[in-house]
């Protein structure tokens, strides 16, 4: 990490935390802070990515604004986190995509939809594009050929995976030598990722709008995450059905891909819309205003991906199917393309940070009374 104003501020604030330590029971960040006397920029990037933004420490802090020290750990670490996304982005130079990220994500979505729409309308011919098609095997592929879906899908998603992996590698190296990763650490990290234990603020949840605790954010995030995973599972099942079992889409309402996709889509929609709505009621005190655009854009892109998928399920077999399919795949394409250059990367760095933390869990705390 480069030395920036945010890094300096984070260093100062965590030095205050290290002299106080009242928040050590809240989450993984503070026990990790207590292992260190001095904070390199790489350490701070690690700690920033370990922070889940539950805001418990902000409301508990006797030095939080308007105290003259103005300690605001969630805000400071969110700023460092955002800088770390740009720093580690692959290939080098792609980090600039994280400035004005909301605009980028929105533009990518618009262009992707336009591209898919125009291409499918052109190849089908306008009249055929709006014709109702019988729901026979391979009906979708009459709108967009299977090979095109597979080539574009695998290429864009494959690129995203490579870029995410390279980013994670940059992060891991920058955070300095890690403790040995054992099986135990892997299990703990996996548990922490899947349960979002650190969005628990020590057990009662996050502070969204006030010092009152709530499980809302954690539950909505679970809806979003597991919904996304179910949708992904639906796609994979469909791929297996088609490629290996010789059963092309569309599938019956009670088939695995449709059930997985429908349940996942609804969960994803609830989670993303809920998290989006929370932006309106959350206390802006510990938030970073400049990051709001990128956060809202990716939430809405996910929500629209889910929504357009559900619409497709409803209107397939009608004259709107071509349009619905093109729009849905346009959103999915946009999602894959922006994946490594959006808030989505937090999942990778957060997981890596949790793994580092799990590996150092038995190290001895420095100092103390």
């Amino acid at each position, binding site marked *: 990490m480069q030395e920036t104003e945010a890094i300096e501020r984070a260093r100062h604030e965590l*030095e*205050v935390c290290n*002299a*106080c330590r*009242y*928040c*050590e*029971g*809240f989450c993984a960040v503070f026990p990790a802070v207590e292992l260190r*006397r001095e904070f390199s920029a790489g350490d701070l990037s690690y700690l920033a990515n370990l922070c889940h933004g539950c805001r*418990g*420490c902000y*409301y*508990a*802090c*006797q*030095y939080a*604004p*308007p*105290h*003259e*020290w103005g300690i605001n750990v969630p805000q400071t670490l969110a700023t460092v986190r955002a800088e770390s996304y740009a720093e580690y982005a692959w290939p080098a130079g792609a980090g600039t995509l994280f400035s004005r990220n909301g605009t980028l994500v929105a533009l990518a979505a618009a262009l992707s939809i336009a591209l898919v729409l125009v291409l499918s309308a052109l190849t089908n011919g306008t009249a055929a594009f709006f014709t109702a098609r019988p729901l026979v095997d391979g009906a979708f592929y009459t709108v967009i050929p299977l090979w095109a879906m597979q080539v574009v899908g695998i290429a864009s998603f494959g690129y995203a995976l490579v870029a995410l992996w390279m980013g994670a590698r940059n992060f891991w190296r920058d955070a300095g030598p890690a403790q040995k990763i054992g099986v135990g650490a892997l299990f703990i990290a996996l548990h922490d990722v899947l349960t979002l234990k650190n969005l628990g603020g*020590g*057990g*009662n949840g996050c502070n969204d709008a006030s*010092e*009152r605790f709530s499980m809302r954010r954690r539950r909505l995030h679970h809806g979003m995450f597991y919904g996304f995973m179910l949708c992904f599972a639906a796609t994979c099942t469909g791929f297996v059905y088609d490629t290996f079992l010789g059963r092309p889409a569309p599938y019956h309402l009670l088939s695995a891909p449709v059930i997985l996709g429908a349940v996942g889509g609804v969960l994803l929609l609830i989670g993303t819309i809920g998290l989006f709505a929370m932006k309106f009621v959350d206390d802006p005190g510990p938030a970073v205003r400049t990051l709001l655009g990128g956060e809202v854009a990716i939430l809405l892109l996910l929500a629209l991906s889910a929504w357009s998928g559900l619409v497709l399920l409803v209107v397939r077999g009608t004259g709107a199917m071509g349009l619905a399919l093109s729009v849905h795949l346009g959103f999915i394409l946009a999602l894959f393309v922006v994946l490594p250059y959006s808030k989505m990367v937090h999942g990778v760095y957060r997981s890596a940070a949790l793994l580092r933390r799990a590996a150092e869990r038995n190290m001895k705390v420095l*100092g*103390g*009374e």
Partner: protein
Amino acid sequence: MGNRSQTYDVLVAGGGNAALCAAITARQAGASVLLLESAPKAFRGGNSRHTRNLRAMHDKPNDVLIEAYREDEYWDDLLRVTGGNTDESLARMTIKASSGVFGWMKDCGVRFQPSLTGTLNLGRTNAFFLGGGKALVNAYYLTAERLGVEICYDTEVLALNMDDGAVRSVDITYRGFPETVHARCVVASAGGFQANLDWMRQYWGDAVDNFVIRGTPYNRGRVLKSLLDQGVSAIGDPTQCHAVALDARAPKFDGGITTRLDSVPYSIVLNQHGDRFYDEGEDVWPKRYAIWGRLIAQQPGQIAYSICDAKAFPLFMPSVYPAIKADTIGELAVKMKLDPTKALQTVTEYNAAVKPDQAFDNLKLDGNKTEGLTPNKTNWARTIDKPPFYGYPLRPGITFTYLGLRVNDKAQVLMDNGQPSGNLFASGEIMAGNILGRGYLAGFGMTIGTVFGRIAGQEAARHARN
């Protein structure tokens, strides 16, 4: 916000732990309650917002405390720190009640850290609040709001108007505007007067300009003064306050825990003139922590400088401010605005007087001492000779004052004639001097506040509704 023209059952003056415990308990007993906090909402909670734990008796381990801490050991600890300056029956009552507060606190939303984590020395005797004192205060305010306690911030109690041993009316300023409110019973939980520098000046003179007030700037002692002026019986030495050594760069108010400094036993401490003035190695730091504020307050300019070398530096927790660092003692002295010749002379004399009797051991009284100095350093004395050298400027940091209101075991405030007031109760720092007349036990202030807050709330509600 209700209409303050009604006569409340219970009015609570103050907004910290003791006030909240009293207000919630009174409300739970069915009383209508008005709580007046002089700070704005962001700084509510008095000194409680800087606390972190509560000392509690327990006969066996529980979910927040390890092993056992029985009544007699607790009492012995209290007797030792107060030098007998306590009231045994009130103290024992408080100690016994401390074992039974957790259920109620948890019901009010207070959360604790699991036992076995947290601070090593205190894991047996003290239960740590998850998130510290401000988190506790937040939980109590949420509970008080939920139960319907009427809470006014930015509202200072100016005077409790007493007549015939009872409070008849209460003069306040509500957001700057004067008002008079009425209540059947009043609980005074407004803390000490350490943030009232003019009052402190009466006893300490202009030295107070160099004092750091560790906690809230809102403990100005107006409630205390108003009552003492009207025939309420005082307890505690008005000139005394709990004072520790702090980093001199701390803010004047509200710096809290992070500005304290634990370097003294592993360093030597010079005054402004470059002279040592007290045995830095007299005892383990937790036992001597609280005398150094006074020692520094008695030095010229109320400032002192802790100096150590690279050997000693890793042995203590740093304060939130970085150490002043230099390669020579002279350079360090210049950076700290000490006379370099004199500082070097003091260090040289000290180094020459160090008699290494035995191996250095920072975990116990190791007997490494100097000989022939005035004063000698009697433990952990090692030569200061390995650069870089580190220094911290120190000032007295005032935690609280001891002067308070005399109370009985029902938290009733006693008048000068020894009779309990008809409708006035007290809890927290404002009456802590009854039990803790001198010294300090970590987490005991919160214990007194919680136990007496609950008694005061219960008794006030009962009196008001009779």
